[in-house]
Every structure is written in structure tokens, then in C-alpha cells.
């Protein structure tokens, strides 16, 4: 390793290692001790003990000692100097889980950061929320800013603004394009003071990624291959007693999958009926597999350094026909012309995409598909679907014929130069771009017109929909950095800079349908073509300053300020100032506390104001064609756009205060980091729903405020450390509470999102003053309150349920049709604990990940009840007396039959309890989605270097076995509740019904270094 400082202990004599890692040092005698040190590695003391040659390997510092961390705008700072919390994750740690999406790879690693994979599809988007939601606009992403090597990259999960096109396709969040193997380090900036230098772009925090760069020395080549397979980690329980039909009457052609008689009875009537029902919720999913190969190279001289990699990922998902491929190539280089001047550049090309199945629709169609029939038997020899009756489409045939493929070509590149004319002065400029084109095709063949064909409903008369999305980000940042020592104890570090940022988006949709030749999937084969185009431009300019004062290396004060000018606000009011002040105090150094129990102690506090501006084009309104295309294919009707603009728009502001402490005990064997924060976001921008009588449906204005407050605790410890054996423990805990503080006058609620439930049991996520942003509402069981008054929002679950004592539904619970608060999709707390053991070359680590106090709407359960699919409906031939009371307070004493048709008591029950009552109660489908899971287990073996030395060219070899999501504990009845019905950019995360199921994966990796 080059550049390592080698020092004679107790003297000033020293040297550094050369490009090949060699060093030589002259020592007074052979009993001295040498001290080896390098930034980011543990300091190592080695007694020479008479030897003349030493082989030293430094251990990376995993305990954040004197750590240098990457802060806003890529500025590296000593962690001890910071007045706010920063946690970073090294490349090796990131690689443990072998996740293909870099966001998923961060799961459980950082306190205060909630990461949810939205589903198990290959390449599917992942959602990252830092310290809760702080915007009200349901359509505006709450994702943090992503920075790669100092340049902002796009992390949109782009979906068409028109619903129903690709919002159920699990599209990638664009950061998923990045190969995690290319990453050296990720620094997560959580609070306002940490991100204030980014101004209005980083109000949701920032994820600052540094990619691997070359190091001077011998050319090293690494090869890494990972092969893995995966399956669905949790499937819902289904009933297996009742067959196809309705009202208990068997009908093998019925639309109704499971309201028929028992299997035994059906078999008596139909000898072709299988002995057992097909468990289609298992049969519908396959074993997925993935194969990733990466080759990387790095090396260079003192003057020129480079690092390069190429990689390929091919993955097949657990839902048939879903796949994803990612190919990337990256080159990163730096030229050092002189000690005063260096230039660097990097370019990363990525091609990614695959067949994105509609998991939501698949789940829905699986519900309709009767377990009397095998879903895997979907294709007739003539290419048409195999189904039964005339009313059901085969879900697997839908996947087979209805394809949605995306193809992304992307370049992320930057060039940077630093000139240091004086020892205390640096000037640097960095310019970068992120450009991609995303070509999406949604195609389906038309009916073939053969005898006996049941054309697939979703495919209509066949269609070819082509979507072309082009987006370009440009960013330029100039920084002047002046360092000076004001006195022997006081030093100053001053930065002044400016920043320009812009993006341009163009999307074109060309949708053709009614195909002439049924299976020819090109646009010129479509008889009707509708097109739609959208362009968007956004620009900002910022000037900023950052001034850090350091008093004797224990007291630090940092002041930052940034003025932003945005294109999206009115010209006279488009400039805004974001200040921050933060302080760090290393009291152990100041008070010279002896290194007994407490080794290191620091307290810190910060205050900052950050903000967000408006989206583009919100200051005016215009006229747009009617949706659904031209009238009679010839006449375009134009209509006023539905949002009234507010010419006085202001940006949103978030004021954050945070305080914390960092303590390390017993020579750093135990470390504790604690943070408390409180942030209040005001003037929040949102589309206030207007009465349509006003002439507009929405008014885009500053309309509310939210508070987030919480704690974050990180602990790391090394309980055992011997020469060969080490045991490390790292734990993160965080709890965030948020609350809508105010909404504009006259606005009682803001609907964030809703999801259908049968019989008006639709669940709605709403913002209501005084409630958390994740509040979920819906219908509930009516309860008996006697003479007490019922709260308008909340249910008192201790009260008995009201039972009807008259009418058709006597004996059944009564439904309260007003919308009540039923749960909160924001967890009470999240945490993770990782244990790592290493013994010689063997390493074992496992992480438990916990999310508690969170509820989700299970639409899947609602459908399972409506269609007699769920296990609980097996009691449909039972009679039961519901617990509860009549309106007069007397206990219910009416036994009722739970099935359909006429009960054993002779009473007509119509289509039965589950369809008439149960499915209409949203409350029963808001489930506890808390979980504890074994997120990751990794076992690795480093081949001994002695063995490798014989090969002459292999310098390192490592085999790793990884398992992800191996164990899950949850009360949730559907698939894994971490998955979401909405895409990664959506704030409506209360819905976890028909999702792409999460997976359990097993992977094996070989790493070779040459």
C-alpha cells in the first residue's frame, strides 16, 4: 500500500511507503517499535524485535476513529469537527448483502434512514426516507439528493403522470443503475446543517457516493462473480376446502373461484376434478436467479491514476417472464501535473432494463383464477390462452403476452480540476452530467381470430405503446478554499463557491392500438395512434460560503450560508437564503480526561434552515387536450388545466435543530452516538383541492406545516478481540414522530393516496391536522357508545361491536361508514443489529433488521375475503354468534351462518358473511405490518496468501456465501409487508396488497485479485 506513514515510535524519524508499498527506514537499534498509519486505517505499532524485514498489513478502521467523512459538496472533513450527525458506509460493508440496488444495500446500516424495497422484482425501485416526510405535496418525491463524485445524479422513479401506464410496473429508482461494486464509500447526510450547503435540493437529506478511484502502485485486477437464486419469502395462507362456483353450487366454468361446494362434493359431480386444489399462490412464482460479473482494474503512478470496471448483471425474477439486465462500464482517472494542479475525470456508461411485469394485476388475476385449475397450464398449441369458462383470463398468459420492457442508456460523467497556487489556497471546479434515455415499450398482440379463442381482456385488440424519456442533468460547482492559522490555537477554513444546476426532461408517448396483424408489435401495424409529449426544464444557481473555526482541535464552529436563485418562482421573489450554524466540542480533549473508561467524548449541536422550491411551470395555467384522445379521431377538444397558480409562491422552509453526543469507552471498544432532532417545515407547497365550482380543481400554494422530531442511536462494540478472533457488534436505532401542524384555512384534509377495497372499504391515506403524515382511514366496525359521544376520528376498540338485531343482516356486525383513523404507515421505531465475527480468514456476519409499530392496508386480504380465497373463509360452513351488543346495549344472541345461500337454520344468507359484511370493513384489512427479519447472513473465507503465492499471479481470493431475508417474523397475513403497491418515489406508502412479492435469496461470490 503506498503512502503509509512509517514512524519510529517516540521520535520524529519517519518515511512513507512507495508506490509499490515498500519502505525502508533506518533505525538506531532493532528493539524499537515502528508505527504505521494511514487515513482510514487503524494505527498499528509493530516491535521490530531484531527483524530486518517486516510484512505489515493495515486493518481498515471500522470504528470511525479520527475518521474523515465526506460532507456536502464532497468536502472532506474530520468527523470530530462536525456539529451534526453523519454516518458513512464503506464499500466492503455495502457489498455484504450483494444487493443489486445500492439503496437496498444500505438497509439497516444507518440510523434515521428508512429503506423499503418496494418489491422483489429484479431492478425494482427502493424507497429511502430520511428523518420522516417533510413535504405535504403527495406528488413530490421525498427522496434524498443523490451525489456521485460531487455531481448530483437522478434518482427519480419515473412514471408517466397519467395513471395506469407504468405505475404498477415496479420501475427502477435511477440510482439502481449504479453498480454497488464500484462504490468506495457512501456518506448519508441527514440533518439540515449537514445539507444546508446544497440549498434547496437536499431538504430530504443527501446520499453522497464516492466511487472507487485509482491508487498509485502496481496494476491490480479484480474479478468478482456472484451467482444466486431466490424465491418468495412469504406466501399468504389460502383455503383448500372449497371449489369453484357460487352459493355452494359447483360450476367449472364459473367466474367465482371458490364459492362452490367442498372438494369432495365437487369430485362427486365432476370426475375430472383434481383430488386437491392447486395452490396457485405458490405455483404462480418460480425460482429466480441472478448472475453478476465485475472486472475492475486500478493502478497508476504518482502523476496519473486510474480505476476502471466493467460489469454485467442478468437477473430473472420470481414472477415468470420478469427479468432485468444491467451492463456498466466505468473509467475514473486523475492526472497530477504538479503538486499545485490536478485534473480528474470519470465516465460511467450504463445500460439497464428488462421486462417489468404488472405484479398488481397479476395478483388480482390470481385471485379470480380458481384453484380448481392449474395456473401454470396457460398456453394452447395455437398460441392462444388456455382458460376455463368465458369470464376468466389466465394470469400467466397475461404475463406471457402483455409485456412492458424498459431500456435505459445512461452516461454519468464529470471532470474536475484543482489548482493550489498557494499552500493555503485551493481553487476547484467540477462539472458533470447525468444523461439518460429510457425507451419503454408496452406491447400486446391482438386476438388471433382462431376458433375457440377467448381473447385476453387486458390486450384489447392488440397494442404497441412506445414511451421515450430523455433527461439531462448538468451541474457545475466552483469552490475556493482558504485555510489559515489565525493564532497558535485558532485556525480557520473558509470556502466560497457557486453552483449551477439544471435538468431538462422530454418524454414522448406514442400509443397505437387495434393491430392489423395480430402478433406484429410495431407502431405502423396499429390502426389508431395517439401521442402525448411533455417537456420540462428546471434551473437553479447558488452561491455559498462555509467557514469552520477550529480552537485547539477540540472546539469547532461552522457557519454556512447559501443563496439560491430558482427558475420556478416569480422573478422578483426567486432568491432565498439558507444559513446554518453548528458546533462540535471534544470535551475529553479539552478537559484532558485520562484515558480510563471514557476514551473520547464529544457533544455537538446545530441549527439550520433549508428549503424546497416549486416544481416547474406552477406559476401559470393553460389549455390542454382532453384526456382519452381526439374525438372521433379527428377533433381535439381543449380544456383549461386544472390547477390554479399562485403568483406569490414562496419556497418551503424547514428549520432544524439537532443535538448529539459521541462517546467512546475502553480504548474505543465501545462507541455510542446519540442524536436528537426537531425540525419544523413551514409554507409547505401543495395542491390544495378546490371546489370545482371555483373553476379549478386545485390551487398550488404554500399551505401547511409539518413537524418531525426523533432520536437516533448508534452503538458499536468489540466484545472480543484477540489476535485471530474478533467479534464486532453494530446497532442502529431510530424513532421519528411526525405530525401535520397546520393546513391552509378551509382545507380539512389532503388525500395522499387511496386504494380500492370492496363494498366501499377503500383505504385512504390522508393528512389531517394533528395526525401523523402516515395516517390511514377507512370504514370500521360500529361500536356501542351508549350515552357517550364518539370521537370523530378515532375508534375506541375497547367498546363492544354493534350487532344488527333487525333486517336481513340481523346477527351480523354493523359497519360504521364514516372514515376513521385506522393506523399509521410511519413506523414507531426502526433498528438493526449486526454481529460480525472473524477468525483468521473466515468471516461471518448477520444482521437483524426491525421495523415496529407500522400498519398497512392489505388489499390482497380484502380480495381474498371477497372471493373466498383466504384460509379464514374455510369456516363458511360454520354457525357463529358474534361478540357484541345490540343498539340497546344487550348482548347479541343471534347465531348466524357464515356461508352463502340458505343456512342450516333455513335463513337465506344471500352471498354470505364474507361478501356482505367482512369485506366491507377496512379496519379488518389494516394489518400490523411490523416485522423482525434476518436481513442478511454472510459467510466468507479468505484463502491463505501462502496458498495463493504458489500461483504467482493471484494475490487474493475470497469466497462468500450470502443469504438475504432468510427469516421473517410478522403478523401481516399477505406477502412480505415491506413491499409496496406504489412506486419508490411515491409518498403513499400505506398500501401493501398486490405487490411484487419480496424474495429470500442465496448467493455465492468469488473474488479474485491479480
Amino acid at each position, binding site marked *: 500500500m503506498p503512502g503509509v506513514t512509517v514512524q519510529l515510535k517516540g521520535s520524529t524519524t519517519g518515511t512513507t511507503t512507495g508506490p509499490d508499498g515498500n519502505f525502508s527506514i533506518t533505525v538506531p537499534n532493532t528493539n524499537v517499535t515502528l508505527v504505521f498509519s494511514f487515513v482510514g486505517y487503524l494505527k498499528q505499532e509493530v516491535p521490530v524485535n531484531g527483524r530486518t524485514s517486516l510484512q505489515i498489513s493495515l486493518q481498515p478502521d471500522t470504528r470511525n476513529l479520527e475518521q474523515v467523512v465526506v460532507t456536502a459538496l464532497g468536502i472532506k472533513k474530520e468527523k470530530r469537527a462536525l456539529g451534526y450527525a453523519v454516518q458513512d458506509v464503506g464499500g466492503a460493508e455495502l457489498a455484504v448483502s450483494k444487493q443489486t440496488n445500492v439503496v437496498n444495500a444500505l438497509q439497516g446500516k444507518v440510523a434515521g434512514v428508512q429503506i423499503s424495497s418496494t418489491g422483489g422484482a429484479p431492478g425494482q425501485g427502493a424507497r429511502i426516507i430520511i428523518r420522516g416526510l417533510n413535504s405535504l405535496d403527495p406528488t413530490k418525491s421525498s427522496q434524498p439528493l443523490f451525489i456521485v463524485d460531487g455531481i448530483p445524479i437522478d434518482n427519480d422513479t419515473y412514471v408517466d403522470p397519467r395513471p395506469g401506464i407504468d405505475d404498477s410496473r415496479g420501475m427502477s429508482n435511477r440510482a439502481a443503475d449504479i453498480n454497488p461494486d464500484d462504490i468506495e464509500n457512501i456518506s448519508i447526510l441527514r440533518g439540515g446543517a449537514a445539507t444546508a450547503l446544497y440549498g434547496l435540493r437536499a431538504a430530504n437529506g443527501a446520499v453522497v457516493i464516492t466511487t472507487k478511484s485509482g491508487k498509485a502502485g502496481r496494476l491490480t485486477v479484480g474479478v468478482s462473480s456472484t451467482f444466486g437464486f431466490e424465491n418468495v419469502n412469504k406466501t399468504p395462507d389460502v383455503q383448500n376446502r372449497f371449489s369453484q362456483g357460487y352459493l355452494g353450487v359447483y360450476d367449472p366454468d364459473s*367466474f367465482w373461484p371458490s364459492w362452490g361446494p367442498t372438494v369432495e362434493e365437487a369430485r362427486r359431480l365432476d370426475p375430472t376434478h383434481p383430488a386437491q386444489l392447486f395452490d396457485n399462490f405458490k405455483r404462480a412464482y418460480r425460482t429466480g436467479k441472478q448472475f453478476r460479473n465485475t472486472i475492475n482494474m486500478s493502478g497508476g503512478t504518482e502523476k496519473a491514476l486510474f480505476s476502471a470496471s466493467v460489469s454485467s448483471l442478468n437477473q430473472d425474477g420470481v414472477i415468470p417472464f420478469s427479468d432485468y439486465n444491467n451492463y456498466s462500464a466505468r473509467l475514473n482517472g486523475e492526472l497530477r*501535473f*504538479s503538486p499545485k*494542479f490536478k485534473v480528474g475525470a470519470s465516465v460511467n456508461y450504463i445500460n439497464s432494463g428488462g421486462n417489468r411485469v404488472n405484479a398488481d394485476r397479476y395478483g388480482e388475476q390470481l385471485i379470480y383464477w380458481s384453484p380448481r385449475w392449474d395456473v401454470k397450464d396457460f398456453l394452447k398449441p395455437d398460441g392462444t390462452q388456455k382458460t376455463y369458462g368465458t*369470464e376468466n383470463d389466465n394470469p400467466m398468459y397475461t404475463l406471457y403476452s402483455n409485456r412492458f420492457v424498459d431500456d435505459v442508456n445512461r452516461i454519468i460523467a464529470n471532470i474536475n*480540476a484543482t*489548482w493550489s497556487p498557494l499552500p493555503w489556497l485551493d*481553487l476547484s*471546479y467540477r462539472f458533470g452530467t447525468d444523461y439518460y434515455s429510457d425507451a419503454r415499450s408496452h406491447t400486446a398482440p391482438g386476438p388471433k381470430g382462431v376458433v375457440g379463442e377467448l381473447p385476453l381482456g387486458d390486450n384489447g385488440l392488440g397494442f404497441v405503446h412506445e414511451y421515450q424519456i430523455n433527461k439531462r442533468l448538468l451541474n*457545475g460547482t*466552483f469552490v475556493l478554499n482558504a485555510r489559515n492559522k489565525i493564532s497558535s490555537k485558532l485556525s480557520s477554513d473558509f470556502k466560497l463557491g*457557486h453552483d*449551477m444546476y439544471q435538468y431538462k426532461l422530454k418524454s414522448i408517448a406514442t400509443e397505437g392500438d387495434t393491430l392489423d396483424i395480430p402478433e406484429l408489435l410495431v407502431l405502423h401495424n396499429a390502426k389508431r395512434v395517439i401521442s402525448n*409529449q*411533455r*417537456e*420540462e*426544464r428546471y*434551473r*437553479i*444557481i447558488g*452561491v455559498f460560503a462555509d467557514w469552520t473555526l477550529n480552537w485547539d482541535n477540540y472546539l469547532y464552529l461552522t457557519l454556512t450560508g447559501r443563496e439560491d436563485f*430558482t*427558475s*420556478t418562482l416569480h*422573478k422578483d421573489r*426567486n432568491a432565498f437564503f439558507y444559513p446554518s450554524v453548528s458546533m462540535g466540542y471534544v470535551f475529553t480533549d479539552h478537559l484532558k480526561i485520562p484515558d480510563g473508561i471514557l476514551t473520547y467524548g464529544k457533544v455537538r449541536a446545530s441549527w439550520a434552515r433549508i428549503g424546497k422550491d416549486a416544481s*416547474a*411551470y406552477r406559476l*401559470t395555467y*393553460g*389549455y*390542454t*387536450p*382532453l384526456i*382519452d384522445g*381526439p*374525438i*372521433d379521431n*379527428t*377533433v*381535439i*377538444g*381543449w*380544456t*383549461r*388545466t386544472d390547477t*390554479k397558480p399562485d403568483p406569490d409562491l414562496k419556497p418551503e422552509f424547514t428549520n432544524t435543530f439537532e443535538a448529539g453526543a459521541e462517546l467512546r469507552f475502553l480504548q474505543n471498544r465501545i462507541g455510542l452516538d446519540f442524536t436528537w432532532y426537531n425540525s419544523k417545515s413551514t409554507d409547505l407547497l401543495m395542491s390544495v*383541492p*378546490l*371546489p*370545482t*365550482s*371555483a*373553476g*379549478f*380543481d386545485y*390551487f398550488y400554494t404554500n399551505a401547511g406545516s409539518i413537524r418531525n422530531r426523533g432520536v437516533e442511536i448508534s452503538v458499536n462494540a468489540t466484545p472480543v478481540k484477540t489476535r485471530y478472533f474478533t467479534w464486532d457488534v453494530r446497532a442502529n436505532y431510530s424513532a421519528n414522530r411526525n405530525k401535520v401542524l397546520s393546513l391552509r384555512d*378551509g*382545507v380539512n384534509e389532503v388525500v395522499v393516496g387511496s386504494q380500492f377495497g370492496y363494498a366501499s372499504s377503500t383505504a385512504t391515506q390522508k393528512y389531517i391536522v394533528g395526525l401523523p403524515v402516515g395516517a390511514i382511514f377507512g370504514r370500521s366496525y360500529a361500536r356501542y357508545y351508549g350515552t357517550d359521544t364518539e370521537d370523530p376520528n378515532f375508534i375506541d376498540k375497547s367498546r363492544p361491536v354493534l350487532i344488527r338485531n333487525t333486517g336481513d343482516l340481523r346477527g351480523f356486525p354493523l359497519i360504521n361508514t364514516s372514515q376513521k383513523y385506522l393506523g399509521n404507515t410511519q413506523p414507531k421505531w426502526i433498528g438493526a443489529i449486526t454481529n460480525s465475527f472473524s477468525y483468521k480468514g473466515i468471516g461471518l456476519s448477520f444482521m437483524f433488521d426491525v421495523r415496529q409499530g407500522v400498519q398497512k392496508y392489505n388489499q390482497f386480504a380484502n380480495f381474498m375475503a371477497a372471493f373466498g380465497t383466504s384460509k379464514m373463509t374455510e369456516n363458511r360452513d360454520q354457525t357463529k354468534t358474534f361478540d357484541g351488543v345490540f343498539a340497546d346495549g344487550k348482548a347479541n344472541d343471534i347465531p348466524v351462518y357464515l356461508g352463502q345461500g340458505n343456512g342450516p337454520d333455513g335463513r337465506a344468507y344471500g352471498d354470505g358473511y364474507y361478501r356482505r359484511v367482512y369485506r366491507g370493513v377496512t379496519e379488518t384489512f389494516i394489518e400490523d405490518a411490523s416485522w423482525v427479519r434476518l436481513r442478511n447472513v454472510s459467510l466468507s473465507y479468505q484463502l491463505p496468501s501462502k496458498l495463493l503465492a504458489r500461483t504467482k499471479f493471484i494475490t487474493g481470493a475470497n469466497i462468500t456465501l450470502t443469504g438475504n431475508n432468510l427469516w421473517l417474523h410478522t403478523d401481516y397475513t399477505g406477502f412480505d409487508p415491506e413491499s409496496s403497491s406504489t412506486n419508490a418515489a411515491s409518498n403513499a406508502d400505506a398500501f401493501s396488497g398486490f405487490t411484487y412479492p419480496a424474495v429470500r435469496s442465496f448467493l455465492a461470490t468469488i473474488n479474485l485479485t491479480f
Partner: protein
Amino acid sequence: MYRTMKKLLIYITCCSMLAFFGACKKYLDVNKDPNTSATPPLNGLLASTTYNTGYNVYRTGDFTSYFVQYLASPNTASSTDTYDEVDYSLTWTSIYNTMADLYDLVNTADSLGAYEHAGAARIMMALNLSMTNAIWGAVPFKEALSGGVIQPRFDPDQDVYQSCLALVDAGITSLNRTDGKILLDETRDLLHHGDAGAWKKTAYALKARLLNRITKKADYDPAAVLTALGQAYTSNADDLQLTQFQSRSPWNQAAVNNVNLTLDGWLSTHFVAALNDSTFGVFDPRLPMIATLTKFGDYRGTINGKGRIGTGTDDEESYLAVETGFYSKGGAPLLIMTYAECKFIQAEAAFRAGDKTTAYTAYLDGIRAHMDKLGVSPANRDAYVNSTVVSIGAANITLALIMKEKYVAMFLNPESWTDLRRMDYQYTDFNMPVNAVLPAFIRRVAYPSAEAARNSANVPPVGALSDRLWWDE
């Protein structure tokens, strides 16, 4: 190399500083929306408003048809059938969105001197507003539509009615102007295809309809109704109807959905009985041109509120006919106001004025006009008209008979509900729905949640849905 690079760095730095200080304003000037038209497109608005005015008649008729028992839900105790409170936000929103476009069309047309456009727009505004007035009574209008007031006040019931009449008169004034600079566009006027004269007839037809709505009021003036009718439609060719659609004609879509088992467009027992000879003893030849035969070979309706008998998929009842139905076949016209309606308005006004001869002639003309519209053969038409049940002679003509025939001729049109309420639902064998949640016939609907939630300070309180609107009292 090194010097060049250094120069380049300084150059870039200077340029970006310059860009910042010098061209900042221009650099940020990219917020003009390139995706929409900033100015209102005159004929584009004409196209959307003529289209949506027609479509709003469907959107409204889609629930009033259950109140007047043209249709019945296949589901037991369906909310609309049983007079339960249903949220008609979508209809409300659609009508107000159309009126917002009409508001812009009126202003744009006036400023451009496109007086034919302005006249047609005012008449369409009156038509849309009169639909809201007929189902909700008091609605926002004077403060509405411009966006200037974000929570507009509601105008009293009677004021809205007067606004409708004023709009019709203003529309006629606009159409009478001869100094127009831009004339109506033939292809973008989807209702009268650029015929300003036809719009004027529509204005008078609407005026007659409106004046005839207040039969319960002291100032009801049958003479004024008849005067207006004098300049209204003179044949079926004048009818205001929509014939061009984005995809399917909406009632055709309902019929197609029903065939595809999204059950819709089921005929009510009351309507079927009124036409299939069970109520009046004569088979109306229009029934086969509307509904499907059951598997029993006859026509059967569904009792409102009772729901289906069987599975709903096996033709045990009559539905809107997807192939042969005049109202529900592919490309079926969506009727807004017709010559037949004018004839029945004439019959009623003349009857109320004591002129039974005119009333009787208009009554028979109305039946014939509607039958011709549907394409009933002259033989079948005359057989029906000449039956003793229908041709009872001028001396014996009754209001009930006129309204009974008007009811058939207004099939699916929301104005029919106004008629039933004016007649206090006194139609032969017209019964309360099964499972009704009201003790009496429905007289109005509740304000939709979209308005109630967003304009709660102004939405007037609504008692029972059996409470009467101003003109119904």
C-alpha cells in the same frame, strides 16, 4: 499542457462567475410551460364544450334514470335505486369543468368578435347550469368558474334559474349579431356543426323547457312557453344530439360492459311494464328498439332496489341492447334536446292553457316524432298511435297521458326526472323502490363530497333527499 489546463480552469471559473452575475436572469428564464397553450384556443374550447355538454347529459342521466325507473340496478338495494345518499362528485366536477371552459369560451369569443361562438357558449352554459339547478337547486354561479374566488358562494335556487334564462337571452342576442369576425367552425361544433340558425332554435327550445319547469309556481306562463316554442325545433333534423365520441357512445359502452359482465344498463320493471302492454294494454314498438329479449322470449325488467333474480349472466332480464338498441348500439346518438320533447312541452303548455286541441295534436306529433327518430316502421308507428289507448281524442286528453308519453320519449334524459317531480311521481304503477331508505319519492340529491369537503363554509344544508327544490314546492 499544464498551463493550458490552468488557463482553462481560470476561464471556466470566470465564465461561470460571469454566467452567474451577468446572465442570471436569462439563465433562469425557463419557466414558460411548453406543454400547454397559454392562450385559450377558440375552436378547441368549442370542441371540448360541445362534446362535454352532450356527455354531461349522459353523466347526469346515468343516475336520474334510476330515480325515474328507466333503469334498475342488478344489485340488491343498490344505493341509487333506493334513494340512499350517493356521492355524485364526478358528475358535479364534470359539469363545472365544462362550465369553466364555457366561461373562457364566452370571454375569448366576445373579445375576438366570434359572436356565434359566444352565443352557442352562453346557451351551453345555460344548459349545463340548468342541469345542476334541476338536481341540486342552489349552486355556485355568480362567483364561480373564474378562479378569482376559491370558495364561491352558492346562489339561491331561484337566482340560478334566473341566470339560466338570462344566459339563454344573452345567447340569442349574441347569435343575432351580424358583425361577427369569426364564424362557427363546422367540424369543431360537434352539436350543430356550425349552423348558427340551429343554435338559435336550441336557445328557444331550452327557453321553453326552462319556462315550463315552473308549472308549480304562480308566475308559470304557458303562453310564454308556447311563444318560445314558436322559434324552436320544427323537425327531428333540428335535434341537439352528440354523435361523435372519443371511443364508444356512452350507453353503448354500458351495454358492452354488461355483455362483458360488468353489469350495467338493466331496464326497470316499471319502464318495461309501461311499454310491453302490461300497464297500458298496448305493446309499444319502441321497446324492441331499446331492450334485449330475455331467454324466455319476452321483455322483463328488474324491480328497483330488488336486484337480480339469477346470476345476472343468463338473460333472465332485459338490458340495453348492444346491437339493436337505438340508445345503446355502436355509435348511438346521445340525445340532449329533441323535437319530440318540444312537442310534449307544447302539449303540456297548451293543455295547461286550456287548449286541448293543440295539446292533443302536439301529443300525437310528439309520439310520431320519437318513433320516427328511433326508426319504428310507419306501420308499427301508426298501429300504436291509432290504438284506442293512445288516440283517445282531443276531448279526452289528460296531462297524465301527455306526461306518460313524454316519459317514453325522454328515455335516459335527466330532464325526465324534473317532469316526474313536477307531476309528483303520479304515473301509473310507479312505485317506491324496494328497500327504499326514504319514506317518499326522491326530490333532490345531496351535494357531492368534492364540493362539501372543499367548500364547506358555503354549501347549504340539505335535509332529507325527499325535500323539494324551489320550483318543485
